[in-house]
């Protein structure tokens, strides 16, 4: 038990899934609901997050249907307000923020650093329950008629005038914040204290670096929005006057506090996505990532700069000229580390042996869409342009290029990349490539017209519009339906693969990284013996990798 012997000559059993793994370790609902295994909790999150994604998409569908025609014919303006608000609340707080960290991050962080679990497994399980509790509050609000303040809960509308379920939704978001704090805290401690021997900071996969940066933002930002939302709820309930100008309060103060979290929250969504892309680009170019340290530190730089730019949401809200100028400059500075990443991914592709597997299609899509979203972000960080484009569809298009074109593309790419590790099965190649293509085409068709609409002056958050905008809106709605098909397809073939997919083996992509050194699906304890790391990350050239990727045999193989 104590001595670990290496038996490279023993071939792996033919039927890998019959070996002990985290899926067959225990059966029954109770074994899932009381699990402390980070891999199972990742799966639980995946299920919850998918349900909320479906709900958020349903609201998106309603928005696009209403905007198919210039007249407000499908719903009342008040209903429309509620629909776009709930689309935002559900997508931002219950899908985009937890999507990659809580599912892929939960599953992969301990595997990638060679740990048996996250530092606090009970806290990890608690975070899933807290997430769902927050979800229940929000769902309760939705089923009772929803909320109409916009996902930003701007005061004094949210505190004094709105006749919708602000408090229930706010409490849902407040509670949900704790689940992200638990996850972020767990990741930071795990990355600091649980790394396998030899896993130095500069041997960490970039996925880990970006999750570390994300966790920093979560830990520093989320509590601020928590107290802000608590004050909104208290104000609405007791009319204290904190944000009510009639009582001496300042509604702009709310915007400052809200965006102090909610702008960094955008980086909570995009940083893990960047981590995923770094893994995919290296794996499918079969090259060491270009400028590893720059990409790693770019994550930290984005996390730090992200806290200094919140004022760019308030250029027309009456800030001082000096504050506005500084926020504008700081916002443009964020483009620097972001561009470092994009250039380094592109440089990694250069002279790589690129293969167009499904995850790589998503990764390439991400690079293009993120670049467009990022560049338009620099545009609207410019003061003069922002005054023109503020609150138009240009803004909507910009942040959807980052959130959907960035985060969801990366989430889908990551799911396709690690699915063989998670489930132990392969999915159909043609269908999955088709879905990646549909998502890319559908996405651009949905959101590119919105850039033009915004530039022409179509405002956000209206249920009707002048007839001259109809052609572009019809294009957008058509694109959304293609996007919908692209998102639904994976649901079917992933489910299909669980039963009928080919067994994946431990490393179907021939990738490097500790997660590919263990079996698929991994055993509950992740590794038969704690691995000792002796190599750089993304070492796609050394002899050992060559041997490993050309034969199926694992290097270390021992069953406890």
């Amino acid at each position, binding site marked *: 038990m104590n001595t670990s012997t290496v038996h490279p000559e023993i071939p792996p059993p033919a039927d890998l899934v019959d070996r002990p793994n985290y899926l067959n370790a225990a059966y029954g609902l109770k074994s899932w609901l009381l699990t402390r295994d980070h891999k199972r909790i990742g799966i639980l999150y995946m299920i919850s997050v998918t349900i909320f994604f479906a709900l958020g998409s349903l609201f998106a569908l309603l928005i696009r249907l209403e905007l198919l025609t210039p007249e407000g014919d499908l719903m009342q303006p008040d209903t429309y307000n509620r629909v776009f608000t709930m689309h935002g609340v559900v997508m931002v707080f219950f899908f985009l923020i937890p999507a990659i960290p809580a599912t892929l991050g939960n599953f992969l962080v301990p595997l990638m650093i060679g740990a048996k679990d996250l530092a606090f497994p009970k806290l990890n399980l608690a975070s899933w329950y807290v997430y769902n509790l927050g979800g229940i509050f929000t769902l309760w609000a939705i089923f009772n008629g929803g909320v109409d303040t916009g996902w930003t809960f701007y005061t004094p509308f949210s505190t004094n005038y709105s006749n919708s379920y602000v408090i229930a939704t706010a409490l849902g978001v407040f509670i949900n914040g704790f689940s992200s704090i638990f996850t972020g805290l767990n990741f*930071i401690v795990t990355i600091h204290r649980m790394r396998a021997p030899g896993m130095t900071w500069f041997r960490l996969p970039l996925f880990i670096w970006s999750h570390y940066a994300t966790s920093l933002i979560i830990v520093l930002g989320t509590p601020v929005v928590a107290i802000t939302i608590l004050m909104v709820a208290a104000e609405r309930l007791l*009319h204290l006057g904190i944000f009510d100008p009639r009582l001496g309060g300042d509604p702009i103060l709310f915007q400052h506090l809200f965006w102090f979290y909610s702008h960094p929250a955008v980086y909570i969504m995009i940083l893990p996505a960047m981590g995923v892309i770094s893994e995919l680009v290296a794996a499918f170019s079969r090259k060491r990532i270009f400028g590893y340290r720059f990409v790693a530190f770019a994550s930290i730089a984005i996390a730090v700069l992200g806290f200094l730019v919140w004022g760019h949401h308030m250029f027309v809200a009456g800030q001082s000229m000096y504050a506005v100028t500084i926020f504008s400059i700081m916002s443009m500075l964020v483009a620097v580390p972001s561009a470092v990443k994009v250039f380094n991914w592109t440089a990694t592709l250069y002279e790589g042996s690129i293969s167009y597997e499904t995850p790589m299609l998503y990764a390439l899509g991400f690079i293009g869409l993120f670049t467009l979203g990022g560049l338009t972000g620099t545009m609207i960080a410019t003061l003069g342009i922002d005054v023109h484009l503020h609150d138009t569809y240009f803004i909507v298009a910009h942040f959807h290029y980052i959130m959907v074109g960035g985060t969801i593309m990366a989430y889908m790419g990551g799911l396709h990349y690690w699915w063989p590790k998670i489930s132990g099965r392969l999915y159909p190649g043609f269908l999955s490539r088709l879905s990646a293509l549909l998502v890319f085409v559908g996405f651009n068709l949905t959101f590119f017209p919105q850039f033009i609409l915004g530039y022409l002056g179509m405002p956000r958050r209206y249920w009707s519009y002048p007839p001259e905008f109809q052609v572009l809106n019809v294009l957008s709605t058509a694109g959304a339906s293609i996007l919908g098909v692209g998102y639904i397809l994976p649901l079917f073939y992933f489910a299909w693969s669980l039963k009928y997919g080919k067994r994946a083996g431990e490393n179907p992509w021939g990738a490097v990284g500790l997660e590919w050194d263990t079996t698929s699906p991994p055993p509950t304890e992740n590794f038969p013996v704690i691995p000792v790391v002796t190599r750089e990350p993304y070492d796609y050239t050394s002899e050992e990798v060559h041997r490993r990727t050309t034969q199926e045999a694992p290097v270390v193989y021992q069953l406890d």
Partner: protein
Amino acid sequence: MSISLTDPQAHGGHDAHPSLQHHFDTLEQQKEASTLGMWLFLVTEIMFFGGLFTTYVVYRSKYSTAFVAASHTLDWKLGAFNTAVLILSSLTMALAIWAAQVNRRKQVVAFLIATMILGLTFLGVKAVEYKDKFEHHHVPGASFEWHEGGHAEAAPAQADFAKHVQLFFSLYFIMTGLHAVHMICGIGVLAFLLMPSWKGRYNSAYHNPLECTGLYWHFVDIVWIFLFPLLYLLGAHAK
């Protein structure tokens, strides 16, 4: 699982300590992880109260005279007494951890109980102060009343002044209220630690839970040390 492989410095041999969780290799690693986790949690708490303090600072500078007038209705002697009580409770908390480190089981329990009693004393004094606010109609809301005014000003200005005083009391109740909630949680955790302490589970080899609770307790204490001057000691107390 090989322990020597992962941590050659591990002391205490290879027998697993009963308090060692399965996913850690050594007690040392487990202790470092839980302490770091606690510190990070305190960072989130600082940011949480930070939002409130920011709000306070904004209105304190905007409505300076109203805040001073409102602050004068608070009894600084009770506040000072409570500050002393909390500092003393931090001492007993630290002594409880020390007692565990030197394996004095009964003293751990005694100091924990002393800490809890001091915490409850603080809450009792706070309850008296809250009661006073209710009696004087200084609780924000429909029944709020303020007659003193700023200086000799016209009626509309006085109405505004009263609103700003109410803002002070809103922040007073939110800040001290959230602080009290943290105190109650702390006392709850201390109660939870009593039984294992009595059974001698915390000793020189293993006392993470005590240490982390101590960190939390000191943090709540420090929050009060900021709240006390911000709320009670505005302007000169000439009374």
